[in-house]
């Protein structure tokens, strides 16, 4: 009887497989299964098919794999031939080390992974990258590619990029960093990949030459939603693309040389669908800001280290962009933006949900009005401000009704401010206090005791050397919105994800205190060795 049952279960398993070579005799059943079947019989139970997965249709198995990480998928592909096949056929996202020796592996790689739609080809600065031939070969095998990410593929030229574009016409997102092709290749992509929605370019060396052709608009101009330019000499050559992108929603410009006021003036009447603008380390002044004020649908504005933007410009924007929801300002302690601008924002932008002020000195004057007028203000971060002290925190506590998350860093706040938080801000879920000399662990503990539901994340480690904290780091571009911190040490997480881990961290923070300050000390020293602002920036963008 035992034999019959095991034969039956083997037979049904054999039907479940597509490419299985299992014969329906007990002899070919794997040892473990044999034991299991016998155990079942010993207990007199019904024979149960224990290899459930073999009964799963391939598509279901593929769905299971979708929930796994890349490393887990790699391990799964080693289990058996079926899993190898299905895992390969269902993998849509692939990241390859794009060195020159990749060429020989391309045929086999892409017969295994034949439905890749999102591809990353990453090389490093010291190695020779893939050449045009390899890219064309890959593109021929991934005709449905929707996203391509290139990093440091310096052997790729304009013609390679053009040939790639011809094979992958459904491309929606292109992100290239540290590549050396130029405007010819970029224009080819813009003309051929007409569904392109997102373009992100960092350090494109081929356009540095002053004779580089202007880029854009191209056939893709009207489908573009996001343009992101970082660290470009001659970023201005993208001007005609930006002006031609009539449906552009997001524009991000980070550390591109040149004077950008002119472009924004030109854009003022042409590109009005813009909802999100990020500007960092740019030469842009109030003139440019007044042009930005034309985007009446503007919801998100990041102004990071743009010292020529003053209150005047911010007032202009506030008065005309009334839908503003998220505002980040890193004033770089230049005091060009302060109470005056913030009061205008408070009065004109009732939808404000998120406000991050770094190196800006707001006083009770503006904070009061912000708190009373912006009834949707849920997230607030104040960093490196000399004027935010206990009275300001009390004011926030008393008036910010909707506030859920508060972050204070390097401000002259003390335990008294913590006390104010105990009784204010009824919706407060999380408080993070870092590098505020006046706040001690007692204050934090007291607050936790008094207000149990509040997650309090306190870091009372020593202040870093003020020079090093002078935020050369800038805003982290890791996609997490709130709140970005200047010069994050490795330990500092962004609050959005931390939630439950914060309390456990603070519990053992004393043991980590030494580790934290040691780490910050090392980071500090490294920055000095690397030589001032240049060193730290290149280390981060490396």
């Amino acid at each position, binding site marked *: 009887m035992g034999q019959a049952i095991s034969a039956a279960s083997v037979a049904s398993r054999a039907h479940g497989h597509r490419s299985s070579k299992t014969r329906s005799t007990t002899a070919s059943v794997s040892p473990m299964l044999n034991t299991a079947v016998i155990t079942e019989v010993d207990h007199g139970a019904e024979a149960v098919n224990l290899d459930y997965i073999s009964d799963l249709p391939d598509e279901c198995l593929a769905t299971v794999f979708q929930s796994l990480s890349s490393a887990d998928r790699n391990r799964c592909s080693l289990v058996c031939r079926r899993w190898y096949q299905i895992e390969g056929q269902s993998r849509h996202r692939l990241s390859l080390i794009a060195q020159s020796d990749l060429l020989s592996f391309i045929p086999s790689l892409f017969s295994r992974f034949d439905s890749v739609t999102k591809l990353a080809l990453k090389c490093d600065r010291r190695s020779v990258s893939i050449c045009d031939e390899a890219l064309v070969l890959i593109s021929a095998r991934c005709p449905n590619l929707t996203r391509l990410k290139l990093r440091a593929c310096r052997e790729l030229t304009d013609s390679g990029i053009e040939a790639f574009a011809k094979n992958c016409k459904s491309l929606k997102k292109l992100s290239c960093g*540290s590549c050396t092709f130029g405007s010819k290749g970029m224009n080819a992509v813009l003309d051929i990949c007409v569904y392109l929605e997102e373009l992100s370019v960092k*350090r494109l*060396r081929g356009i*540095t030459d002053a004779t580089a052709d202007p880029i854009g608009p191209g056939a893709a101009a009207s489908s573009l939603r996001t343009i992101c330019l970082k*660290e*470009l*000499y001659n970023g201005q050559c993208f001007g005609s693309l930006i002006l031609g992108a009539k449906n552009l929603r997001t524009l991000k410009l980070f*550390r*591109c*040389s*040149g*004077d950008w006021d002119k472009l924004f003036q030109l854009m003022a009447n042409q590109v009005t669908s813009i909802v999100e603008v990020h500007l960092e*380390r*740019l*030469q842009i*002044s109030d*003139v440019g800001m007044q042009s930005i004020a034309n985007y009446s649908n503007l919801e998100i504005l990041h102004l990071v*280290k743009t*010292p*020529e933007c003053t209150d005047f410009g911010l007032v202009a924007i506030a008065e005309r962009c009334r839908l503003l929801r998220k505002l980040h300002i890193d004033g*770089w302690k*230049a005091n060009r933006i302060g109470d005056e601008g913030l009061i205008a924002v408070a009065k004109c932008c009732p939808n404000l949900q998120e406000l991050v002020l770094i190196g800006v000195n707001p006083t009770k004057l503006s904070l009061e009005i912000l708190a009373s007028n912006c009834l949707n203000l849920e997230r607030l971060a104040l960093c490196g401000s000399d004027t935010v002290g206990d009275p300001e925190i009390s004011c926030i506590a008393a008036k910010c009704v909707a506030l859920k998350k508060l972050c204070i860093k390097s401000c002259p706040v003390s335990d008294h401010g913590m006390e104010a938080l105990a009784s204010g801000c009824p919706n407060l879920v999380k408080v993070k206090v870092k590098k505020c000399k006046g706040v001690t662990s007692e204050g934090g503990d007291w607050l936790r005791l008094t207000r149990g539901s509040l997650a309090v994340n306190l870091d009372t480690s020593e202040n870093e050397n003020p020079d090093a904290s*002078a935020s*050369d780091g800038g805003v982290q571009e890791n996609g997490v919105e709130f709140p970005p911190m200047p010069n994050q040490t490795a330990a500092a997480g962004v609050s959005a994800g931390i939630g439950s881990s914060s309390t456990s961290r603070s519990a053992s923070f004393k043991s980590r205190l030494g580790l934290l300050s040691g780490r910050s000390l090392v980071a500090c020293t490294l920055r000095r060795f690397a*030589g*001032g*602002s*240049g*060193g730290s*920036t*290149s280390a981060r*963008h*490396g």
Partner: protein
Amino acid sequence: MGRLFVVHLEGKIYSCKYCRTHLAVAEDIVSKSFHSRHGKAYLFSKVVNVSLGENEDRQMMTGLHTVADIFCVGCGSIVGWKYETAHEKGQKYKEGKSVLERFKLSGPDGSNYWVSSHEAHIGGSDADDV
């Protein structure tokens, strides 16, 4: 603006006020009598860590010049301009040299220069002859 490789200077250094990138040394000052929209400006024979903008013809107090704006590579802010060509004979000495606005600089002793209450007009900058 590409991977940042910064030149480091020795001596009495003028650096960018915001990002502290070295821009020039005191020995290279040719003249302190220049003026820009933000007040005082110095003419330097040599300036480092800047990127050049496009050439423009500008009418200055001393005549027509072809200049290019210069931007700090660390933060992208405009710090002055460079004389490419001077169209008048007496101004030829300026060619190839750069003017840095004192307002944008942090001096060798760390001192900064603050603009006096008359706010600058938004327009071209003009230079004063020595």
